[in-house]
């Protein structure tokens, strides 16, 4: 193993399936789902004068 050539850090990142899985779930859930959910929860009641 020691005589293997050094891997570029970017290659290490792309080889890390589990990190990609975690980020792939986290980013859309926060950006789309949670943010959108918060906007809906914060909807104010209509005044209807």
């Amino acid at each position: 193993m020691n005589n293997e050539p050094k891997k570029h850090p970017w290659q290490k990142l792309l080889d890390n399936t589990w990190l990609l899985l975690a980020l792939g779930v986290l980013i859309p859930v926060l950006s789309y789902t949670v943010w959108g959910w918060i906007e809906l929860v914060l909807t104010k009641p209509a005044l209807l004068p």
Partner: protein
Amino acid sequence: MSLRPLTAPWFHGPAGHEKIWLGCAILWCFVMSLMMPYWHFRGKQNSTGEAYSVKPADFLARTEKFVAANRVGTFKGPASNPMLGDLPLVEPPAGGDAYLVGRMWQWYPALRLRLGETYRLHMSALDLQHGFSLQPLNMNFQVLPGYDHVLTITPTSKGEFTIVCNEFCGVGHSNMSGKIFVE
């Protein structure tokens, strides 16, 4: 090689044609990213999603009040679409609030607007989701029960416009219609 594991280190940065294309693509994505915020501030057509929560019964009551106060006549439903029936024709005060109810299967009431005036058009649904689709202009907005969706809208062309429903709402969906007249 696309089907075989890679054993040697394979990272190398983009080069040549690939780099040129990458540059073009990034530039184009950047242009598109700027267009939406630009239009939001400088363009005239935007969907801000302005909305308030409302009970369907309250919204209907407010609409009936609006109709009673501003009614100017009756729109006779066309014989070709018996589901529509007759609608009160209502002219909101110039620059004021207008209310539009979507229900199975009509948009209630018919509205008469003035060219160049800006109105706050409140839309909500009483039963199912409906789609506000103004034809032949082809402007489309979603209308949900429980939400008072407010469009700040300025008619800039005269004539008779039809509100088509473009969200599926049962067997009468393709007949669901409404009217806006601009004078």
